[in-house]
């Protein structure tokens, strides 16, 4: 993964952590709270730091990395009239709306479980400005508009887009931006200053995408009313201090990763090798234990091609020469998931132990780990019925293939084993024909 969406709350914390470095000439308004329930909100309001929750009207929004919350009717800012939402109303609304699943205009369904609560800032519609920045192949794009707000897309013609080549600094950067400041903006100079700071902040903090829509400028104070952000998580090792702790939530509507997927993710983070697992359908008949990021996709493609995705239980891969122990752990996790229930229609399940011809991964070594897992799960595999198909090449593949065949036969598991002279995905065809 590289580009990861972060919550609005955490995005604002990144602003707060770095405010003086980039936005020293402005005053921040960054009072914000993140809660999962009405009770949590009420408890937070007891805290001295969050006393403002009891002192002013509030705005409440779901904070679950999906956009268009206004258009989805998921922003609470008025009961009777704008700006009359007080703490008890906010808490009641959070509890009420999180009770039943909702469906977004974009189609995803799920239950709301995380909210951001902020002071209600009364303002004119015309004061809502727009700013965003994103990375493209050859430059960054900074977008500005004096017609911000929920209908930004309807006013896209008023958005100025500035292509900024990497490494543009100083007056060159300022000139590039100054030319495009919307003249409709009342305070052009301040808009300009903010835009330059915003872009520098975006670039230095390794954001992939950063949007504030709308923001308000009132005197020296900047109000960031609504924020969407994605960061490049590969820059995490550089940004640890600047970002503070970031959490990358599962996209709304997607099943949260299970314990097994999380366990593999943790193993992956600790290892120099790569271990990935996504369970697509726990009842699926076909399970893949495939080496390599590219090969794993080809196997999934082929299965979907030949019989559709319904029977495909998982997507995953191991690569980068994992140790025997890491491979054993990965394979055991997979076999455990696979052998929990027999196939609903009573057919044998299929285990595809696939892979391309490795460059440097030691096949004998990784297969030793897989054999350990087969050994542990042989009984369960026999109980539910599993047929194994193996295809692999690379360093020590002859030894690895011979060992896995002998081990499976000794354990009484049906197995077919192929090397590099068999086309990589042919085992899928064979498995489905059987």
């Amino acid at each position, binding site marked *: *993964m*590289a*580009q990861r969406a972060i919550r609005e709350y955490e995005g604002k914390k990144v602003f707060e952590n770095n405010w003086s470095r980039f936005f020293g000439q402005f005053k921040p308004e960054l009072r914000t709270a993140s809660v999962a329930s009405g009770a949590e909100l009420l408890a937070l309001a007891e805290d001295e730091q969050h006393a403002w929750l009891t002192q002013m009207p509030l705005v409440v929004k779901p904070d679950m990395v999906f956009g268009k919350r206004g258009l989805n009717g998921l922003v609470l800012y008025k009961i009777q009239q704008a700006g009359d939402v007080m703490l008890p109303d906010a808490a009641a609304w959070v509890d009420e709306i999180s009770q039943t699943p909702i469906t977004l205009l974009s189609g*995803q369904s799920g239950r709301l479980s995380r909210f951001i609560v902020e002071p209600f800032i009364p303002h004119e519609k015309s004061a809502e400005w727009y700013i965003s920045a994103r*990375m493209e*192949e*050859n430059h960054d794009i900074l977008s500005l508009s004096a017609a911000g707000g929920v209908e930004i897309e309807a006013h896209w013609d008023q958005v100025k887009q500035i292509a900024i*080549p*990497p*490494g543009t600094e100083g007056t060159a950067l300022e000139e590039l931006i100054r030319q495009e400041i919307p003249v409709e903006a009342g305070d052009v100079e301040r808009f300009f200053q903010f835009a330059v700071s915003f872009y520098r902040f975006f*670039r230095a903090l*390794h954001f992939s995408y950063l949007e504030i829509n709308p923001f308000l400028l009132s005197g020296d104070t900047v109000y960031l009313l609504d924020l969407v952000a994605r960061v*490049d998580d*590969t*820059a995490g*090792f*550089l940004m640890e201090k600047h970002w503070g702790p970031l959490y990358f939530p*599962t*996209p709304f*509507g*997607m099943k949260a990763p299970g314990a097994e997927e999380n366990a593999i993710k943790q193993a992956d983070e600790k290892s120099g090798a790569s271990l*990935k697992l*996504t369970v*697509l359908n726990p009842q699926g008949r076909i399970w893949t234990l495939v*080496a*390599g*990021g*590219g*090969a*794993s*996709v*080809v196997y*999934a*493609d*082929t*299965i*979907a*091609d030949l019989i559709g*995705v319904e029977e*495909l239980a998982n*997507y995953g*891969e191991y*690569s980068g020469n994992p140790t025997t*122990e890491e491979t054993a752990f990965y394979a055991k996790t997979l076999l455990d998931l696979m052998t929990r229930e027999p196939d609903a229609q009573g057919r044998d399940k299929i285990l595809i132990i696939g*892979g*391309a*011809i*490795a*460059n*440097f991964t030691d096949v004998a070594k990784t297969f030793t780990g897989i054999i350990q897992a087969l050994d542990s799960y042989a009984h369960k595999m026999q109980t539910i019925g599993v047929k194994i198909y193996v295809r692999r*090449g*690379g*360093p020590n593949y002859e030894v690895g293939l011979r060992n896995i065949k002998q081990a499976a036969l000794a354990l009484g598991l049906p197995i077919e084993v192929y090397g*590099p*002279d068999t*086309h*990589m*995905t042919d085992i*899928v*065809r064979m498995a489905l024909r059987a």
Partner: protein
Amino acid sequence: MSNVSDSAQLFTPATQAIFWNNHQTAIQRMLDYDTLVARETPSVAAIVSPTSGSRFGKFFFGTSEILIPIYRSTLEAAQAHPHADVLLNFASFRRAHRVTSEALEISQIRCIMVTAEGIPERHARELKLQAEALNKLIIGPATVGAIVPGAFKIANIGGTIENIISSKLHRPGACGLVTRSGGLFNELANIIALNADGIAEGIAIGGDRFAASNFIEHMLRMEHNPQVRYLLMLGEVGGREEYRVIDAVRDGRIKKPVIGWCVGTIAEHFSSGVQFGHAGASANTELETAAHKNQAMREAGIRVPKSFNDLPEIISGVYRELHAEGVIGTFKEPDIKPMPEDCQSAMRAGRVRKGTHFICTISDDRGDEATYAGKPISTVATPDTGYGIADVITLLWFKRRYPQWASDFIETVIKTVADHGPAVSGAHNARVTARAGKDLISALVSGLLTIGPRFGGAIDGAAKYFKLGFDQTMAPEEFVNYMAEQRMVIPGIGHRIKSIRNPDRRVESLKDFARQQFPATPLLDFALAVEQQTTKKKDNLILNVDGTIGVLMVDMWRSLDYSDTEIDQFIDSGTLNAFFVLGRSIGFIGHILDEKRLGMPMYRHPFDDILYDISDTEKE
């Protein structure tokens, strides 16, 4: 220096690289490839390793060993090897950006391969633009590299030598192969070998979002490379780079036949969130899906299979067409000289055997965790394992764990002999050495070197002689007489102060312990009978601590069912002395640390403590 865009040939048999990071296996694989394709010079000219202590790496080039110089920086390496124009950057994702950026500024470097995965996207993009501005080529990041069969192979690409030969990567073929995935590169090379006749040039561009050079750059170069007769592009869901190739095919910049396939058709079946494969493999729009790209390729006249499974047919079809048209001739199969095999892998495969020069029967450091007599260290180290220091000693000295009474005895011995104060000669020497400003080890060794027949050696001697007397069933008086005849004092008998009326408390404790815990103490009983004889002569000729330990050790081993021969062997090899050396080292180290703490000046023995008697020296 030749310019990449001017030259259609990526690498030649004369290309030499600087390898950043001392990756011995990968470098050796390159040199093995050089041997296979009969290169005259090694493909790696130099290694850069900022932290390496050595100035050379030792490698095989064919059957002979060569030294490849190691430098602290790329610039140094480049200056010393002006013909090396390729940098193979194997730095970690933390350093890869800086290493690449610096190397781009070195004028002789024209091509850089970057292997690290997980370089921040902003940095990867900077590298791409920096390289473009300087008209240089970067392959990667997140790649296994590239190969020009018969000329030059980067690091691990192609896998093992056997795979290289079976995939015909050891001699030029006709296909220009560009893939995103490194894992699938080998697979494709294999498919091409099985269904066509090898490749002329192959590149894995890398799986990250910003590949510094992409399909189009490589395929345009291959279009101009006369050795390439047709092209194969293996793309992926995500990004729009394949469309640039489609445009080039449409507008005629690419005229050679192109076979194409994008993997990741699976992704369309799932909403966003499931990350299939590489970091760059995620469709943001319909255009970026694999299906859309495959269709667009098809429409542009690129040969696209129905699925990856059908790719071999398409390849063999194109090959047969071109072969029939005479565009592709028949390649001469080079003689393959048998590759000198690595001794270890040949041994693993059971093809050669080799005598060993050393034997070890007590511990093993080959696995994930070193073992003491078969037990991993973690199973004996912490208190919860129930193993004490004496258990570790018996595992490593005698290859088994002794019963509790015996390990308790050993621990008692170690504690009893740990120190006898600063005045004994060993401790004195250690202290004098420490005060002379020597380090801990030197001071300790000077103390240990004092141990011998007169200092600390009595344990060995006592065990040896009491055992001899006992084994030969001598009566106690007989034994005393025997030792007198040998003109030897009985080792382990006698104390400076302690006497029969003023017994040595340490000895009494050891005797009590042994009587309570040992199954039997025949040799101790014999020694005590001897003591009764010697103390008749003089009050202080008692069985001392060394003697007691010596005879009890023998009693211990007897109770543990060791044979006489085994026990004699323990005594002869200095095992008893070893307990003294081990225990006393504790005291010596204490004295040395004490001296270091006190910071006393060098010791010089006072004149008045030496009797200078030079009267019989020769006079002039």
